[in-house]
């Protein structure tokens, strides 16, 4: 018989501490859908996604019921659409966005990622066309998510793309101003984007991936917080141990779900993404873990150190629990999706500068941050360049997902609803980086890139 204490611990994690599998994401290659005729290509895209992902949602729901583990999201990531768009003779790739949206609705997933371009070293025809169409694509679809990789440790940072993305983010927010600028919440600008990330909005199916794959993102900030709370006055080494042990258990559950999904769908298992992904629900917050460690508020001095410990311990615990680890793997700090971060931002304890420092030691980057509506494209580009530099130099993924709250100022709030949450508008340094951004060109790859 299994130990009763272990059984009750698992039940308690699910009932009271928000333990769940955050997402089962099916990665689908669309490279065989390329066609010079964009309508034909879009039809092939729709057909392939519907064919491959037909049973994804039902399978996820069945596993969820049988194992008693909530599986929150079922999603799809596809090949970067810019790779298909390049073949379509300068036609706007928007038809691909419509096809993705229709397919997502047909199979019942809540997001589809991959309206993406990889331009860390430069643009090809398809890349530029796709990036230019992002604002319209995100305004005219419900499920499509977009991402652009503008830098990498190996390639440096494409500053022309950085400049362009500042404008694209603003335009995307402007076109969706009637819906709290939600378009910008579905657009991520990456440095060192992983090819197997199951989490939205930045998921896409990289060119090195197989035809179809199942990647799973685990979660569980509430479970980690509760475990740290039970430890009371132990020293910090013990805190790290507790996080490792908890992360191991969470990840084992994710591994089981991933293997089962892979078996039932007859699709190879790709990776487990060991991430602590918060939700706006009270108790499911990464900020509360940091506060449980002993900070008065997330954002206080000491936050970066606490987050570094958390991020590292999550990986150490999780890596042994899974056969393949990948994706983003680390603690997420999306402000609007984390009740503790929202509170800390409202009280002024958490600032954009502190968040930038935190991104040097955790998974991803400046995520789901609402900024004043009059923030210029140059300033947004400056934010992207800084964040990309942190990723490039530290050989890690960083990203920017900021939402300019068009027509609103610091102190007001945007409310996206659902998992995207709500957030106060945070103050931004208003001095202009315009001339620096306007120079264009490429920041050369750092010495760290020369490892051979």
């Amino acid at each position, binding site marked *: *018989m*299994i130990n009763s204490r272990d059984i*009750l*611990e698992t039940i308690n994690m699910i009932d009271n501490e928000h333990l769940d599998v955050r997402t089962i994401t099916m990665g689908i290659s669309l490279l065989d859908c390329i066609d010079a005729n964009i309508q034909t290509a879009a039809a092939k895209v729709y057909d392939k996604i519907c064919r491959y992902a037909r049973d994804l949602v039902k399978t996820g729901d069945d596993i969820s019921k049988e*194992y*008693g583990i909530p599986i929150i999201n079922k999603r799809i990531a596809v090949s970067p659409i810019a790779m298909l768009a390049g073949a379509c003779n300068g036609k706007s790739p928007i038809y691909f966005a419509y096809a993705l949206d229709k397919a997502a609705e047909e199979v019942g997933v809540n997001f589809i990622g991959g309206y993406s371009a990889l331009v860390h070293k430069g643009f090809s025809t398809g890349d530029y066309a796709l990036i230019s169409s992002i604002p319209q694509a995100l305004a005219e679809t419900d499920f499509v998510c977009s991402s652009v990789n503008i830098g990498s440790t190996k390639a440096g940072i494409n500053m022309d793309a950085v400049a362009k993305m500042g404008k694209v983010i603003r335009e995307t927010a402007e076109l969706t101003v009637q819906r709290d600028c939600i378009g910008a919440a579905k657009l991520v600008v990456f440095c060192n984007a992983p090819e197997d990330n199951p989490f939205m909005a930045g998921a896409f199916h990289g060119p090195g991936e197989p035809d179809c794959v199942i990647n799973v993102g685990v979660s569980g900030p509430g479970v980690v917080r509760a475990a740290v709370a039970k430890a009371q006055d132990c020293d910090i080494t013990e805190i790290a141990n507790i996080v490792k042990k908890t992360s191991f258990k969470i990840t084992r559950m994710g591994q089981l779900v991933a293997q089962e999904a892979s078996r039932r769908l007859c699709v190879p298992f790709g990776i487990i993404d060991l991430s602590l992904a918060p939700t706006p629900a009270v108790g499911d917050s990464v900020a509360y873990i940091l506060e449980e460690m002993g900070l008065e508020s997330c954002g206080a001095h000491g936050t970066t150190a606490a987050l570094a410990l958390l991020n590292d311990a999550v990986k150490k615990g999780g890596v042994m629990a899974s056969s393949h680890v990948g994706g983003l793997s680390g603690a997420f700090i999306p402000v609007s999706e984390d009740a503790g971060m929202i509170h800390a931002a409202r009280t002024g304890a958490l600032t954009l500068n502190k968040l930038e420092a935190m991104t040097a030691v955790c998974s991803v980057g400046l995520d789901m941050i609402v900024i004043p509506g009059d923030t210029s494209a140059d300033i947004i580009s400056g934010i992207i360049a800084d964040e990309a530099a942190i990723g490039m130099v530290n050989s890690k993924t960083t990203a920017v997902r900021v939402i300019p709250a068009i027509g609103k100022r610091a102190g007001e709030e945007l409310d996206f609803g659902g998992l995207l949450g709500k957030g106060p508008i945070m103050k931004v340094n208003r001095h202009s980086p315009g001339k620096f951004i306007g120079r264009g060109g490429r920041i050369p790859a750092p010495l760290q890139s020369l490892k051979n």
Partner: protein
Amino acid sequence: MRAVITVLGKDMVGILAKVSARCAEAHVNVLEVTQSVLQDLFAMIMMVDISKSTVAFDELADSLKKIGDNMGLKVHVMHEDIFHSMHRI
């Protein structure tokens, strides 16, 4: 295939009887039962064999959950592998 049924809540007469009656009705064999009462909180854990069950897994889970709801108890029915994978290396 084996599953674990857990019942949590306030202790009262007839919990074990009602849950096992439903199991018998569905040809679900009860292999082991442990229960503890800590003050007023009742926790019962049943290991059951569902390989000869006459109803689908989710139907069994839903019906047991309903029995629990009627008595103000929380009932979970979960595949045993989840506990093995989380708590054993």
